[in-house]
């Protein structure tokens, strides 16, 4: 049936994160933004908290899956876990608190989906296993996803980082850039090619562990926004990766699976990024709404009131529209219905709506809105949001994805 009611668990997660965002995250986030990072103690507290709450959904999708599988194995009727939808709801709330924090959260991050989706059982145990003890007080660890290069971003088929087999190792040469958590990660999921002329068929995915000989960190980027999040350059100079770190094993690459590994990641993460964008956009919208409420919506009628009210409402409904298509994309993922088009739709609409929300909110507040001393959050959201229409596929790339689903025989433009 058509239903928009959150489950009690989703409601709980939403409320818990909202409370956290309001009382702990918002008061700290400006400092993180200034100091380009979040203190490990804070992340540690958050991880412990997540452990106590029986996983915060965002941080432990595996845990959620495992418990669903367990209850099924125990003969309980198959219960839909809605892991994607719950993550989407959690992500909006967390980003409402701070977008940067979300990207800093320990865990496999974007590296998780390819390892989970394409790794051998042995690889999954090895690379995902390191995160198990984090919520119980173990060391904080990160995973990362390294695809983009200086010469190839959206055009994934054009990557030039090379790999060649040498005995029991693969030798990697090249550079990866704009990698979230790339420097602090225990491992990076790195995409390379055996031969650029082969296009996608030549792609191989590796799990490159910290400390691998020939692997080093280049520059840490200085960004417009999301400054609490680490964005690194990775350098591979005759980097020797053990053959057992080739994701999925060699036989997997007989077909075009290599490239599909890179792309499959996005069908599940695009709605999640869309939800984060909506969270930031909503933060700005609510800020402007409250500003209008206390400054312009006076007891007497002011001539500008209606114009500003309509502008605000337009922002509100665009965010709401984006939220609905994002929920739909997440619901499809949970139902295991192919959702590439819907995932791209959510990302494209949410990125746009959230940027509009941040721009309009500053404008609605007027000159007052740009004064950093009093309205630092508004100023920060404006800087943070822009990249949400860029990373995980620009708005234009989302339209390419959608176009290919509108015209069956459209190969490329």
């Amino acid at each position, binding site marked *: 049936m*058509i239903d928009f*009611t959150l489950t009690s668990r989703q409601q709980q997660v939403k409320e818990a994160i909202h409370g956290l965002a309001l009382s702990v995250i918002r008061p700290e986030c400006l400092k993180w933004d200034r100091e380009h990072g979040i203190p490990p103690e804070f992340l540690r507290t958050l991880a412990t908290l997540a452990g106590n709450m029986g996983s915060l959904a965002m941080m432990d999708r595996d845990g959620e899956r495992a418990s669903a599988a367990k209850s099924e194995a125990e003969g309980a009727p198959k219960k839909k876990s809605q892991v994607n939808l719950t993550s989407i709801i959690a992500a909006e709330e967390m980003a409402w608190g701070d977008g940067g924090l979300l990207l800093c959260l320990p865990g496999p991050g974007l590296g998780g989906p390819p390892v989970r989706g394409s790794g051998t059982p042995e690889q999954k145990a090895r690379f995902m296993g390191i995160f198990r003890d984090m919520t119980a007080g173990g060391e904080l660890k990160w995973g990362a996803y390294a695809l983009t290069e200086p010469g190839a971003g959206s055009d994934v088929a054009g990557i030039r980082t090379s790999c060649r087999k040498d005995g029991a190792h693969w030798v990697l040469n090249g550079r990866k850039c704009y990698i979230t958590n790339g420097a602090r990660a225990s491992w990076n999921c790195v995409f390379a090619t055996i031969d650029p002329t082969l296009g996608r068929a030549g792609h191989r995915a590796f799990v490159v562990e910290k400390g691998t000989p020939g692997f080093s960190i280049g520059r840490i980027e200085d960004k417009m926004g999301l400054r609490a999040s680490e964005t690194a350059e990775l350098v591979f100079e005759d980097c020797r990766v053990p053959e057992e770190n080739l994701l999925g094993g060699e036989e997997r690459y007989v077909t075009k699976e290599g490239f599909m590994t890179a792309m499959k990641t996005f069908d599940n993460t695009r709605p999640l990024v869309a939800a984060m964008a909506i969270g930031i956009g909503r933060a700005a919208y609510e800020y402007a709404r409250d500003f209008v409420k206390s400054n312009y919506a006076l007891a007497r009628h002011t001539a500008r009131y209606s114009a500003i009210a309509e502008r605000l409402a337009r922002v509100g*409904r665009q965010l*709401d529209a984006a939220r609905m298509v994002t929920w*739909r994309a997440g619901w499809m993922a949970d139902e295991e219905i192919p959702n590439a088009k819907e995932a791209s739709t959510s990302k494209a609409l949410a990125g746009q709506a959230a940027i509009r929300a941040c721009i309009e909110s500053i404008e609605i507040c007027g000159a007052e809105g740009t004064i950093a001393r009093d309205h630092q959050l508004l100023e920060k959201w404006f800087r943070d949001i822009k990249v949400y229409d860029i990373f995980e596929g620009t708005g234009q790339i989302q339209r390419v994805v959608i*176009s290919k689903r509108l015209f069956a025989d459209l190969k490329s*433009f």
Partner: protein
Amino acid sequence: MIAFEPTDDQKLMQESVASFAKTLRARSREFERDRAFPDDVRKTAHELGLGMVAVPEALGGAGLGLTTAALLEEEVAYGDPSAGFAFGGPGAFGTAVSELGNESQGKAWLAPFAGADGWSRFGAVAWGERRASAARAGMTTTATHRMGTWELTGEKAYVVNADRASNFVVFAQTQESAGWRGLGAFLVKKGTPGLRVLDRETTLGLDAVSFGGIKLDGVEVDESDRLAGGDDFNAALVRFFAKHALIVAARGVGLARAAFDVTREYCETRRAFGKPIGHFQAVAFTLADRSMDVDAARALVWRAAHSWDAKLAENHALLHTSHAIAFALEAAMRCGDDAVQLHGGAGFMRDYVVEKLMRDAKQLQLCAMTSAHADQLAASIELGRAIDPGEVLPSAESQSAFV
């Protein structure tokens, strides 16, 4: 639990309505030329139960709720956007009576629409007026109370199906000093002395729908035929507009999807420079944007309809509804506009349905509530202001709409 899938029952209804709607698309130029739907089509619509989907069971309707109604209205409009307005049945009149009337009024005035001859009946709502009063806020049509009887005088405009309706809900000023908060609603039968139906207008789009007006010259209405609106007349009034406009928004989704589908197909077959025009980025991206419009509009309409069916707090349901109305009506217009644009010169010719859909989209945007009014409603809720009918409902003072 969040879910985006109609029930099996709803799917069955959708399918049967969709196959009916297909026959409408094929004949839509005929309906346009005749400026009406023929009896056989209206009888089929009545047999499918299309007029009474959301009307409560207690009042003789199917009581299936707004979600089901929205699903079916989208399908009907996909065939022909005029159809939902012009099939007959209680329409906006039904929503007004259910929201503003008491149960016995609802039973008495809506039951006839459920009968075998229900297809031949129309109801109408006389809300709009051509000119605003310069002297005071509110309507120029007045209702004066005299010993258990109300006397209605004035002229109503922008009335959907005015010349077809056997029953009207007429809105008039009951308290002149109270402005837009001083309105009353009255049930009036066609043929009541003093009531004259004005000539039908010709309009930009939705040609098969009749748009007109009525003139009231001392029409007498018994106190028992006044719709009191329960405890709070203004709240009931806004609820009526919101629910009615939500149905119009569902029609907007159907129109948007029709324009999109026809255009996508055209762009796949029409070739230029050696390939289908849809394979050019400028064309494909435009279509991608419209595809997003259709999906987002539909999701918003579903959520709004579900909010009423699930009995959320009224302010939440109203907020969701205003988002759906404003977004869907604008999306329909963008889809209609781009449909003609991507057809190029051919789109301007009446050989193709898209020019009709574009005209219909603009006309639809001016039915029930405009996007601007829906935005005002959302803003009032979000800013914690009392909802003022003069601010959130269409009128000669702000922007008129056909009701």
